[in-house]
Each structure stands twice: as structure tokens, then as C-alpha cells.
């Protein structure tokens, strides 16, 4: 990764200005009570309302400005290679199931010895299962024929 010297002065200048203004907004909220021009247990004067509303607005907007300059600073640092961009996790889609026993020779060159052994074993198991099923079905058909013959004899 290429690292260049980033120019950060402009972002720091904006961040400092925004922070000072946000603090000024905080002071504006407190000022009517701190300086005593808002009497206690009395409805707020127009100057108090003005200072309070302006103070909240200035503090919020100043913090937004600070955040914007801060994110610009982060972008510049990322572009310069000082900090690395956050890697987003890539959702891995599950690979479709491909039975190894049906075509073990097709992907044989890319498989390891263990895969080849497993494929051979699975193929042998599949052949054994089919043989057992065939013999089982033959035995069942023989038994059913014998039962039919016995019933006929009994009648």
C-alpha cells in the first residue's frame, strides 16, 4: 500500500473552529442562569428564550460541523494509506452439493489424496447399498409369490 504524507491542517482548522463554536453554544444555554438575567421561579424572558434556542441550535450544528470535518480527515488519512479501510465481511454463499461418487475422475486432478479415498469409499458404499436393495426386493417378490401359492392351495 502506498503511503503519502497527508495534509491535515485544513481539517484540524475546521475541527477546532467547530469545537469552539459548539462550546459557545453550550455557554449560551447556561448564560441566562449563570449571569442571573433570568430570574428564578419566573417565566422565561424573551432574551432567555432566544439564548436558549440559539444555544441548542449552535451546539448541535457545531457538533455536526465537527463530525463532517472529522470524517473528511478520516477519508484523507485512508486515501493517504495511514489508516486502512475497514473490511466488510463478504457473505459466503454455500457451494451447491456435488456428489463426488458420481464423477470422481472429473475433478480428480484438483483433489487431494484424502478426497480421492473418500470418493472411492463413497462409491463403494453406494454400490453396496444398491446391491442390497436389489437383493431385498428380489426376496420380497419371492415371498409374495409363495404366499399367493399357499393361498391358492388352501382354497
Amino acid at each position, binding site marked *: 500500500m502506498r503511503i503519502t504524507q497527508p495534509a491535515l491542517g*485544513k481539517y484540524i*482548522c*475546521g475541527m477546532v*473552529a467547530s469545537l469552539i463554536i459548539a462550546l*459557545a453554544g453550550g455557554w449560551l444555554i447556561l448564560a441566562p442562569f449563570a449571569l442571573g*438575567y433570568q430570574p428564578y421561579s419566573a417565566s422565561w424572558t424573551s*432574551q432567555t428564550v*432566544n439564548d436558549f434556542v440559539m444555544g441548542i441550535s449552535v451546539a448541535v450544528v457545531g457538533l455536526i460541523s465537527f463530525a463532517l*470535518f472529522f470524517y*473528511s480527515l478520516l477519508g484523507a488519512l485512508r486515501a493517504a494509506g495511514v489508516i486502512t479501510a475497514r473490511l466488510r465481511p463478504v457473505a459466503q454463499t454455500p457451494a451447491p452439493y456435488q456428489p463426488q461418487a458420481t464423477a470422481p475422475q472429473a475433478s480428480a486432478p484438483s483433489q487431494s489424496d484424502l478426497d480421492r479415498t473418500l470418493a472411492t469409499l463413497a462409491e463403494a458404499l453406494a454400490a453396496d447399498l444398491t446391491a442390497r436393495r436389489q437383493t431385498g426386493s428380489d426376496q420380497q417378490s419371492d415371498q409374495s409369490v409363495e404366499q399367493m401359492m399357499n393361498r391358492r392351495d388352501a382354497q
Partner: protein
Amino acid sequence: MNVRDARRRLVSPGSYILFLLLLAGIWLTISPFVMATQPSGMHWIASTINNVTIGTIMIVVSLLGMLGYMLFALRDLIREAPSKQAMEQQASQSPVDQ
């Protein structure tokens, strides 16, 4: 670099918000007189002094923030200009050499 790119580099989104804060500072400075909370012909009361002071600070700081950002960005543009020119010249000469 065209004019739009240069303007984008000189004026950030944060600078627009600093401009809004400059307007808020102007309002804070003039609000005691506009809202008539400062009696005319008398010494300034505490709220007027506070508002004018804070408003002036906001005007000055927001102006300094905007101008500082623009000056730093301009300095960066000027520093980058020779290297960009060299790259463009190299790019224009390379097809001729081949």
C-alpha cells in the same frame, strides 16, 4: 482539474455549516437591539454584553475556520500542481517515445 473539482476541494461540507454558524453569530450580535431587550441610551445590560461577545466570537471563529480551510486547501493544490504537470507531460510524451 476543472473549476468544479477545485471548488469542491476548497470548500468542504463543513465550511457550509460554518457559514450557517456565521449567520447565527450575526443574529446573536444584533438580537438585543432587534428584540428591544437593550434599553436605548443606557449602558449595556448583562444579556446584551453576553450576546454581543458570544456573537462576535462566533463570527470571528467561523470566518477563521472557513478561510483557514480554504487557505490550507489552496496551499495543497499549489503543492500538487508541479507533480501533476510532470505526470501529464510524462503521459503525453510516452506514446511518442513508443
